[in-house]
């Protein structure tokens, strides 16, 4: 039992380590200095208060998109559609932020709620199709991502602007930005979103671990037939899990729309935050606390990467390679488990 828990803890650590080593091999092979590269990365992520602020800001949507992916995972669903749900959430939040003028204590929650609702609705479709028609959610959510991207762009062009490429800035009353947080971090783009993300992580933990509904959701994830036999409504639980997952994704979009950017602009491609959420969730072991840690790691990697070209000459894409390899290693945990048992046997 104890050794099992230890292995579960060791796998993500080893995966990160192997990913970093592979990254340094890539740097050596292509003629860069890995020590300079990684020191630049470290400095760019935590070097001074500005960088720390940026890292926490980047971590915010990662926590939420990671929670979204993980929540679906725990119920036996693979929500690749977090990206699309995030985009519609972003759109809804900005829309509410621009269209209304209300006191802050109503406006801000309303905008976040709108984002959660939009994300939930976007996830309702694949959830419903899965429950009712047994259509695999992976394909439907991928398709919904593209539909979200194109529809959102069309709405920005036609409704939120006059054939322009971005919306107006949201009203101050819907903004998550904070003079205080900016001033203590040397005017980074840090905003109050991090508080919301941490609350969301607690909500996810409580929902899954401490409520009857959460128990049902996890049971359906483990074994649909057994849950059905035990009298649980499998279809309803599948739809519910997708909707909650989508709501988390929508709120991740609100973080970008109400905090980081304060508007929404026409997108040529995906933000990537939703897809990175898959990596965050996997590395975090689909558990709320693990996700906070892995979101911190990926946030630091992404923000720190920006420092690499100027001080070490290494292209920022190195970090994408490292992230991809970390996913590979976590996914191939069979390999790591095999190695660990081999090492243990030899130790005896």
């Amino acid at each position: 039992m104890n050794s099992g828990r230890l292995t579960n803890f060791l796998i993500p650590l080893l995966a990160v380590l192997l990913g970093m080593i592979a990254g340094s091999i890539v740097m050596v092979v292509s003629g860069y200095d890995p020590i300079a590269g990684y020191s630049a990365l470290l400095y760019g992520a935590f070097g001074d208060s500005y960088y720390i602020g940026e890292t926490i800001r980047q971590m915010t949507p990662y926590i939420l998109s990671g929670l979204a992916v993980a929540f679906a995972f725990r119920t036996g669903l693979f929500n690749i559609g977090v990206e699309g749900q995030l985009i519609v959430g972003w759109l809804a939040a900005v829309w509410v932020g621009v269209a209304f003028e209300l006191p802050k204590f109503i406006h801000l929650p309303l905008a976040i709620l709108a984002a959660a609702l939009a994300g939930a609705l976007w996830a309702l479709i694949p959830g419903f199709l899965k429950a009712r028609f047994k259509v695999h959610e992976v394909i439907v959510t991928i398709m919904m991502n593209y539909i979200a991207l194109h529809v959102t762009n069309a709405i920005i062009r036609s409704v939120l602007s006059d054939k322009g490429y971005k919306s107006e800035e949201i009203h101050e009353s819907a903004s998550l930005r904070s003079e205080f947080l900016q001033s203590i971090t040397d005017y980074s783009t840090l905003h109050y979103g991090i508080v919301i993300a941490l609350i969301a992580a607690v909500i996810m933990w409580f929902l899954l671990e401490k409520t009857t509904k959460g128990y049902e959701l996890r049971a359906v994830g483990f074994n649909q037939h057994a849950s059905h036999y035990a009298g649980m409504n499998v279809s309803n639980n599948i739809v519910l899990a997708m909707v909650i997952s989508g709501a988390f994704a929508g709120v991740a979009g609100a973080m970008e729309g109400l905090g980081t950017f304060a508007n929404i602009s026409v997108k040529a491609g995906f933000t990537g935050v939703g897809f990175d959420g898959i990596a965050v969730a996997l590395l975090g072991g689909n558990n709320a606390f693990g996700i906070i840690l892995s979101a911190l790691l990926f946030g630091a990697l992404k923000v720190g990467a920006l420092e690499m070209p100027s001080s070490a000459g290494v292209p920022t894409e190195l970090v994408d390679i490292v992230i991809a390899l970390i996913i590979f290693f976590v996914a191939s945990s069979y390999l790591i488990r095999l190695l660990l048992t081999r090492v243990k046997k030899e130790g005896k």
Partner: protein
Amino acid sequence: MGVFEILQIIIPSAIFFAAPLIFTALGGVFSERSGVVNIGLEGLMVIGAFTGVVFNLTFAEQFGELTPWLALLVAMIVGAVFSLLHAVASISFRADQVVSGVAINFLAIGLSLFLVKKIYGKGQTDQIQVGFDKIDIPVLSDIPIIGPLLFENGYVPSYIAIALAFVVWYVIFKTPFGLRLRSVGEHPMAADTMGINVARMRYIAVMLSGALAGIGGAVYATIISRDFSHATISGHGFMALAAMIFGKWHPLGAMGAALFFGFAQSLSIVGQTIPFLKEVPTVYLLIAPYVLTILALTGFIGRADAPKALGTPYIKGKR
């Protein structure tokens, strides 16, 4: 503008946009028929496009007219080798196939952009100078009406793509190899009992999908974008995946769906020049392939059933 002129704009451009999708979708058919989900088609196309453009830029002087063809060949090989990662993770290490595919996509875009910056010192390559020539197919292009629409002024890879769909159909449904491939995807344990090496068949299938997606990406980059940057392949792999599903995991169906998606793409681009289409907002044409795929999966356009063992790693001796 008459109907014929409109068709003369739309149909050749539909075939033009469909070619990369056909290659990649056929690759997807191989992989998924063997029971391995390949979400990584997008990344494999990225690698193909990158290889095709870099080879073309580097060797255009030495090989002249032959360059784009050799580029396709090299992209095919690199695509197959790159797909080995997906094969090793999902077949030997029993990784979640969707997760491994996602990792392939991340890795492909990261690695190719990293190398572009390393080689060219900027985020985008130069334009390639040597592309494919347009040809008229002899005899067929002389047929009235159909000839000029389908067989005049097309790129050779487009015709190869369509011909290849028939070859793949023959291979999958009429040869022992194809039978084994399908049996591994439907019921790997039964196949194993009959002496078929499940892992080997799946490795071959995944590498074929990598090779074809590599060609698809290179064709896209050589004919359509003519350079490589982060946005060169944006969703074409997923569209090919959609075409494969819309075509019900059948090579000819996948080709038909790819042609249809190419048609939708070409409408969204050339539609502005055509009178009655100008009124239709482009967003409808942009989302059409995705909406149709969802409808097809739901069963509104005939039931589409995936291979039975799709997505499950085969573990010997496990019931």
